[in-house]
Structure formats: C-alpha cells, structure tokens
C-alpha cells in the first residue's frame, strides 16, 4: 500500500533497464519500496540492474517483457499482479530511434512507433485493469516534451510520444475516481545513454531529477509533471508559436 505521502511499497518498472526507471526505483527504495519487479528483455543489463537494486535492500524480481510482443503482455504482466498488490507501475520503456535513418527506412520508423506507442497502449491497459481490480495504485507514464509539439529534428519519436501522452491522459480521465492514479511525466532533454552523443537541448535534466519529480508528483497526486518544472511555462508558449516561425527556430 502507499503511505500518506504516496510512497509505494511495491513497484513494477516496465523497461527494467531504463535509467530513469532505475533512478526512480533507487529513490523509492530509500523511502518505502521493498518489492521491485523489473520487466524487460532478458539480458545481462537487466540482471545487473536487478543486482544493483538488491544491493540497496529491496526484494527484486525480473520478468521477461518485450514491448513489441503485445500478444504476451496480458499473460506476462497479469501474472505479476497475482503474486501481490503493485502500488505503482512505471511505464519507462521507449526508444529514440535515429531520425535521419528512420525517415528513409519506414520499417525502422514503425518499430519506434510500435515500441513507444502500441506497446505502451497494450501494457498500459493491462496494468490499468489490474490496478483497477485492486482498487488502488499509480500508473506513471514517461512521456516527453517531444510529444508536445512536433519538431523537424525528431518528429518520428515525438509523434509516438504524442500518441502515448494522449493515450495516458485519456486513460487517466477514464480511471478518475477509481482509486487508480495516472500520472504523465514529461521530461525535457534527459542526459542518459539514450541521448548520449546528441547535442544537449536547453533545460536539460538528469534521470535523478526526473525521479525526484516523480516522487513529488506521487505525493501531490499530480496528473501532469514537467521536468524541469520551468518547461510547463516554456512549452505553453512554444505550443502557440506559428508554424512558419517554428520551422525556422533552432530547436
């Protein structure tokens, strides 16, 4: 169960090797979390991630999960919930793709969309249903500012996140009043292995900062969290920049 500050006792991370996911898990283990499920493709990285959390004193279990294999989601994820309540599900998987290559390789572009959007729709619905059945819990969805307005530089990734964001918002409304809380997290540029080698955008942030914002959002039962918080204001303005002008902005 969550405590008065929204800190969960059990956590399921979809995308078990995600840096933001692990930073969040570390932060929550320091509070109340004792049980952590890491769902991801079996790999040495997943095992290492589990070991690193175990060293902090949590009871960590891994479960094979592939965002693209939507057929298996219901069975794989459903099984986790039969073993006990999950207080928080963190939907943290996603790929950035390579915009330049993906534009000329539709199959690769579709993989980005399928991972970030289709896979999340499937996994999100399965987890939302399970949370609803237990009458409590938070579904935290990692969206991105890239989904807020399509940019020339990353519109394939951005459009997949836009779809995910809209899905999560709608799901949150559908689950309003059911005891299940859906929180959309929109980080800006996060310095992580996913963005290694890319030119850093303004207001760049870190996985640890995102984790901190998630913890605060849980306590406040927020519906939308921007990281850093200033992005809420910046994007409110960016959203309304006329397209001919936006096209020419160096963003």
């Amino acid at each position, binding site marked *: *169960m969550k405590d*008065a500050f929204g800190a969960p006792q059990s956590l399921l991370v979809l995308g078990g090797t995600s840096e933001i996911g692990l930073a969040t898990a570390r932060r929550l283990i320091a509070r109340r979390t004792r049980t952590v499920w890491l769902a991801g493709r079996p790999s040495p990285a997943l095992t290492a991630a589990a070991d690193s959390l175990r060293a902090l004193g949590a009871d960590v279990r891994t479960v094979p999960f592939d965002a693209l294999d939507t057929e298996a989601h219901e069975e794989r994820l459903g099984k986790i919930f039969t073993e006990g309540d999950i207080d928080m599900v963190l939907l943290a998987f996603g790929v950035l793709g390579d915009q330049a290559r993906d534009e000329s390789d539709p199959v690769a572009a579709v993989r980005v969309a399928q991972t970030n959007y289709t896979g999340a729709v499937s996994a999100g619905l*399965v987890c939302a249903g*399970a949370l*609803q059945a237990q*009458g*409590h819990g938070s579904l935290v969805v990692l969206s991105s500012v890239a989904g807020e307005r399509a940019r020339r530089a990353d519109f394939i990734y951005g459009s997949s996140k836009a779809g995910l964001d809209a899905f999560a918002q709608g799901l949150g409304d559908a689950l309003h009043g*059911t005891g299940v809380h859906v929180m959309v997290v929109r980080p800006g540029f996060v310095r992580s292995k996913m963005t290694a080698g890319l030119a850093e955008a303004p207001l760049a942030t870190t996985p640890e900062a995102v984790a901190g914002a998630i913890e605060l959002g849980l306590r406040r*039962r927020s519906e939308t969290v921007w990281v850093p918080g200033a992005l809420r204001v910046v994007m409110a303005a960016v959203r309304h920049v006329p397209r001919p002008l936006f096209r020419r902005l160096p963003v």
Partner: protein
Amino acid sequence: MAVETHVLDDDCEAITGWGRTAPTLARVHRPRGHAEVVDSVRSSGARGTIARGLGRAAGDAAQNAGGTVLDMTGLARILSVDPAAGLVTCEAGVSLHRLMEALLPHGWFVPVSPGTRYVTVGGAIGADVHGRNHHLSGSFARHVTALRLLTADGEIRTVLPGTPLFDATAGGMGLTGVILSATLRLLPVGTSLMRVVTERARDLDDLMARLIADDHRHRYSAARIDLLARGAATGRAVLTRGDHLPYDALPRRHRARRAPLVFRPGRLPGPPPYVPGGVLGRTTVGLFNELRYRTAPRARTGGIQSLAAFFHPLDSVPHWNRIHGREGFVRYRFVVPYGREEALRTVVRRIADRGCPSFRAVLKRFGAADPGWLSFPLPGWALALDLPTGLPGLGAFLDGLDEEVAGAGGRVHLADDARVRPEVLAAMYPRVGEFRALRAALDPRSVFTSDLARRLDL
C-alpha cells in the same frame, strides 16, 4: 484482466481517512441490520471487508482497496439502558454524539471521550480510543462489559473482557470481525457543564512538572503545546484540566440551574470543499499559537465550560479536515513511557527546531496500560500533532522520530497512522505476533482486512 472503465457501480467510492491521504476504491455496503451484515461478510470477495464508522481515523484503518467497506452507521439503535447499574447496550454504529444526546438528560455521560464525539461505539472499541481521563479511567474498551462480534466463520459471538478475543478486538482495528453491539458502563454526572482550571506553562519542563504534580486531582487533563516556540520557550503550553460540575456547585442564579443537563452543541459553518494547500503554514499557525498562548489566563480556576466546548472544540466546525487542502494532513500521535522523558524532549525539540506548523499539538499523561494487544496507551507521555502532508521532507523526518519513539519503547497510534514503516511495528507493539496468530486461526482466509492491515502486514 482487461480494463473496464465502466466498472464503477453506484456503490463504489474512493475512500480516505480523516487525513484525506492515499485514497482507495472500495464497494460500500450500508447494512441496516445484523442479517445484512452477515450476508455482506459471507459474500465478500477475495479482497475482503472492513467495518467503518464515521471515518474519523486519520489514517487508512477503515479503507479496503478493491474490497468491501461496511458502513456501520446504519446500525444505530440504542437497545437498552439500565439506570440502576449505569449500563447502556447499543449497536456499533451509534455515535458518541448520539449517546450524549440520549443519555445526558438522564444524568449519564460516556466513560471515555476522544477529541471528537463523531466516532461510533464500534470504532471507539476497534481503535480503543482514549480521552483526557486516561490517567484515571483507562481507554474506551476498559468500560465495555460485553460485545457482540461477527467473526469470519459467520458466527456471532458474545465476547467478554478478559478473554483473548476481547483483548485482540479492543484496539484490533476491526481485523478480528465486525462489532455489532456493545454494552458500556456509563459515568453519572450532575450537570452538562465542566469546572475548568487553566494555567500556562512557560516551557516543556515546567509543563511536565505541572502535569505530574496535579494530574491526579482532576478527572480530565491535557495541554496544548505551542510547537513553533523555540529556544527557552520550547514546549510552552496552555494546560487545561476539568471535572464534571456537580449540581450543588452551580453558581446561584446560573441559568443552568433550571436545566442542568441540557446538551445543545452549536455548529459553525465549515470550510468550502476546495481549500488551497498551505493555508495552515508557519505564519498562520505561529500567529494562532501566539494568540492562544497570550490570551490564556496565567492561572485560572473556577471557569465553567459546556461539555462540547471542553471536550470537542473542533466538532463545531464540520469538515475541518479540509482546511489542510487537497494533500491532506498526517496525524502523528505517539507515546513514550515514563522514565524515557529524554526521548519526548528530543522529539519536541526536533519538531520545534524544524518549525513544523502543527495546528493541534496535545500532550497528556497516560495511566496504566490497557489490556488490548494492539491498544495504543502505555504508562507515559502522549503527544499528538496534525501536520500538513505537503511539508517538504516530512516523510523522512517522521521516520526519524519513529526511530526515537520506538527506541524509547514507545509507539504510534495505529488508528491515526498512515505512514509508519512495517519494520518498526514489532518494536512498537510487542504483542503483534500474538495478534497475527489469533487472526490466522480465527480468519484464515483474511476475510477481514484493510489498507492498514496490508501496509503493515497485521
């Protein structure tokens, strides 16, 4: 396990405790008789059921995520009164407010009253509540001569004091079964007024000395501490003691001479449904505390107050819990045993140094321990504070205080708790093992469960 967004039946509600934190969804049943309670418990699904009264527990004791919550306020009949013996038998959903309304005109008062009279008899037993007379009278269940309990097997048992089931049920947070009715021993009173003694204590040591010196002379005693006062004034407080005013002691020409037992508490308007967070911050609470301390008489005897004003000042404000805003509040109610005053001083100093704006901070001395296995009181010093959940870093800070309290052999009150770590529970409640064993034997399928039980693995 597909998502069913239409699953919300009319009887499903998101429920929180009085602190308004950690809401969870449950199907609410409102039984009107014993048969309906039995039906509801028999048909409870895999996620079990828990009885709920008027929802005054600050924590998650009367929530049951995904399961059933039995709203017992419909079972509110006073079944019989025995004026010769001073006993009343009533259903569990009767509130103390209702008991006062019905019995005060006949010269009877409830034996123990917590800070609100809007609690049910069942809830008062389940949480084994205490009042300002604990140093003399013990807690609520001590005045229960018998109760009827519906257990997980569907049987209705009469449970008498002195039995293991009674001691597990008193303070057992509703996890042994549903209390259907109870017989209470009442207190005879001559008027519905209180004779009040007020004094100011300039710091914590002064306060403790005064409490030790004079507590036994009064039936009721409690001190409101100003926890925002720092330095030499740390722990300064207004101390209030009281006794029931006998009819003979009424001043001549007092209007109560004609109607000494009238009980008519007033109601003020409550706060609106939406209050922004942070209203009760350091500035407002600091000003309020200053005012309360300065306007209190340095020492006054012979004051007369109504019962409602003396015992339940906040009950006149409906929904006062909204004043803490959407994030709600955490009630930190703990006790440390006599001989470990240093732990109390440390906790008070840490709260004062941190500047926690606690609107209410009440210190009192407890008497002998109660027989309930999970009953909160033990002989020692009890302090209760309400803190807004939104204070930065409050969770970790309170965890630190828990260490201090548990290390000194103290504990926090389960009915008010919404945050204690399961790891420190056994240190706080040494008999929790027995409680778990009895529950496992009595209710192997965990028909009775709650968010509190899941969180702390009770």
